[in-house]
């Protein structure tokens, strides 16, 4: 049942011996396979030198240096904002999740390539993908087909709206799922027009995490029974339960909740208050009268706080415009970190708004060793965001730098699939095996061959 153990540095990590065929793109699915790879699974990204999926190895395959010099960090997060010889090995948006994974290339849109990919499925445990609904079927990689080559395979499929229902074939990016789930209308400034609402991407994280849980659930079941299965993860259905209070308020009380900005539905004060410096803020939340007294004391028991309109939670909630002004007058004189420590010592939840620089400098995050130093042959040496959790017996780590396109072809073809040197050379000539995207691919999509 278990695949043969591959040579790896994974040691005693819990998922050593589990092989994953990874056909994930962009962020949601790639987040899923990142967690499995971090915990020891042999995750093999199946890539294609003749087809570059949208927004995966960078926002485009071959950006120019001049484009990278003008764009924001999401688009232009390349070492020193230089595209380099193979930009698709240098994009932060890809490299951030590609640690501990392997990369092979094969043109699975041609029969020979599909046959090779199926041979890999035949020696794997999990198959994970988050392409547009129907893509896998079109290629010939439906669950039914996978089962023929590996009867106990677990397939985790993550279409936006799921594998059934009237919207299953709709086109949507992660942020559109936030719209349908109701999240976008729930999180604006209270009185502002929704066209001012900045897009967010929580649904990618939600779907990626749920799919990883789903994969583990299916592995657990297979460990016990020997049976594989198909898992349908409708990305949108992963975020709706996370908005459960709003859903229940509607189904219980018929109430459609409206945006409350940074405020709390029932407690006050709760807000982001300005501090010394440019665009520096402190988040403060007070949930009880006891915490309110602690806050007042930490602020030096100002006379305005004695007012009856702030004496209990309900009064504070009704008078929070005025309350917020008083607190902001106090925080504005101080540093954000100074306010956090002062209020935390008093027992009040407070935390600074942390930008990227703050995260790397923060003493707690440093002491926990969250960031890990990684050297990548085409990117140099940098600190990377590390493990999502810590385990006492089998702590994970970034054992292997982000995989370059086709970097592990030799291992996968020769060691795992038993391909001969002659056949390997032939597959190289035929454009299956390679470490470069076909020169005709500039943005994304299929090569002109």
């Amino acid at each position: 049942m278990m695949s043969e153990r591959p040579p790896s540095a994974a040691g005693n990590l819990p998922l050593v011996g589990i092989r994953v065929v990874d056909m994930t793109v962009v962020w949601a699915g790639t987040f899923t396979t990142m967690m499995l790879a971090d915990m020891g699974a042999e995750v093999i990204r199946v890539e294609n030198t003749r087809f570059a999926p949208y927004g995966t190895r960078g926002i485009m395959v071959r950006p120019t240096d001049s484009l990278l010099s003008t764009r924001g960090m999401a688009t232009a997060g390349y070492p020193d904002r230089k595209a380099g010889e193979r930009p698709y090995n240098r994009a932060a948006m890809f490299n951030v999740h590609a640690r501990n994974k392997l990369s092979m290339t094969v043109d699975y849109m041609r029969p020979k390539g599909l046959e090779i990919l199926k041979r890999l499925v035949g020696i794997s445990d999990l198959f994970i993908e988050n392409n547009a609904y129907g893509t896998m079927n079109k290629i010939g990689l439906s669950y039914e087909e996978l089962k023929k080559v590996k009867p106990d395979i677990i397939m985790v499929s993550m279409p936006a709206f799921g594998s059934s229902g009237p919207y299953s074939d709709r086109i949507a990016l992660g942020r559109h799922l936030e719209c349908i789930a109701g999240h976008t209308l729930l999180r604006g400034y209270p009185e502002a027009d929704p066209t001012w609402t900045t897009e967010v991407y929580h649904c990618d994280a939600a779907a990626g995490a749920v799919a990883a849980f789903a994969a583990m659930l299916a592995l657990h079941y297979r460990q016990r029974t020997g049976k594989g299965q198909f898992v349908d993860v409708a990305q949108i259905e992963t975020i709706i339960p996370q908005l459960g209070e709003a859903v229940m308020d509607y189904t219980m009380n018929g109430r459609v909740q409206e945006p409350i900005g940074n405020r709390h539905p029932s407690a006050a004060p709760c807000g982001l208050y300005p501090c010394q410096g440019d665009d520096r803020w402190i988040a403060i939340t007070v949930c009880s009268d006891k915490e309110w007294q602690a806050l007042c004391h930490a602020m030096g028991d100002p006379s305005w706080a004695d007012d009856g309109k702030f004496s209990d939670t309900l009064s504070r909630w009704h008078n929070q415009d005025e309350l917020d002004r008083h607190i902001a007058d106090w925080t504005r004189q101080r540093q954000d970190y100074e306010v956090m420590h002062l209020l935390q010592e008093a027992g009040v939840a407070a935390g600074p708004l942390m930008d990227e620089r703050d995260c790397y400098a923060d003493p707690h995050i440093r002491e926990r060793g969250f960031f890990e130093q990684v050297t990548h042959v085409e990117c140099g040496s940098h600190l990377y965001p590390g493990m999502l959790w810590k385990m006492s017996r089998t702590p994970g780590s970034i054992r292997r730098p982000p995989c370059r396109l086709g970097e592990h072809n030799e291992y996968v073809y020769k060691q795992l699939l038993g391909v001969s040197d002659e056949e390997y050379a032939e597959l190289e000539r035929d454009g299956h095996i390679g470490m470069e995207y076909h020169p005709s691919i500039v943005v994304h999509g299929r090569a002109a061959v």
Partner: protein
Amino acid sequence: MTESALSDVRVLDLTWYIAGPYCTKLLADYGAEVIKVERPGQGDPARSIGPFLDDEPDIEKSGLFLHLNTNKRSITLNVKSHAGKKILRKLVEQVDIVVESFSPRVMPSLGLDYSTLQKANPSLVLTSISNFGQTGPYRNYRLSELALNAMGTSMKMVGQPDRAPLKLGGNVLQYQAGVLAATATMIALFGSRLTGTGQHVDVSLLETCLGSMDRRAPYLLAHQYTGQKEITTRVGGSRGGIMSGCPEGIYPCKDGYFDVAGGVPWWPRNFALLGSPPELAGPEFGTAEGQMDTQCQHAILAVLYPWAMNRTKTEIWEAAKSARAALAPLYTTEDLVNDPHFRERGFFVEIEHPRTGRLTYPGAPFRPSETPAKTPRAAPLLGEHNVEIYCSLGYSREDLARLRDAGAI
């Protein structure tokens, strides 16, 4: 008859509020037997957080609590009493997993640190969910959903430049930490079943955000790659995102709003969406320069606004289907719950509860073909399973009365 994936898994649930209970809800909904330990009297504090049915505060009528605790059983126990500690140790010996979300100093103070627990049960997985993790200078600090947004996410990018940045909706980050804790727990359990040895899983809410692919982690790495000088900030509106172009972001329509993805790759579809108007047929509209050019943008918007204001969000959503445009209407919760897609998939589920009657809940977040989520059983009443569980541990009903009098249960 279908099977449950986790029917062989027993969980002792020492969590409260949102993250921990969502973690154990996922385990319970897919078949694990979850025993939820609550404080006598008030129980899980989430029972006292709204929304409440008919807005009447009642520990058995909190929508938040009801949603988060389906398929669990509840016992009350004063874990600080001597009898309570003894009972807790008995329970630990019988389970595969303990999940707790106390402040890090609590479990050791109860004599329940991992090394002690593991002596009693070597294969035990202990998952500790805390604000900042079990170690480090902030380990005893408090956290709110808002402070977690501020410290953990790219909140600085969200909102208008001249106003305070905005958090995400509701309590989504605490839920998200719950999903990740459940994943980590299952991974540790998988290892424990192979080797017979459990371990302690330390989940920090802050770290679940910092490592998240909601863009926080990509931006953190981009900051390193670009020389540690640049930070992300607010540019305002819905059009400052990744693929600037036109149309891009949120626009009004006849009865609400919709969000459309723009930029070069999407222009041919957006052009089709607008009915292929001849005034936008020029090649300049499909180039990166044209997409960013003010005159071109004005020409596009001059078509888009009247087109949108004459259509409902549902009509626009349908038009996007034929044009293959990446677009969605902005739904209210009402739109969502009544939507035909989720009805056809049977996503929302009705659950009967002795105090609230039948209510509609969000359903299971994924569908395994062989081991689907269980038919949901309502969240337990406070201490509903005291007799059942304590008697199975060997206590008589008379003992239970004595324990109750002593304030232990």
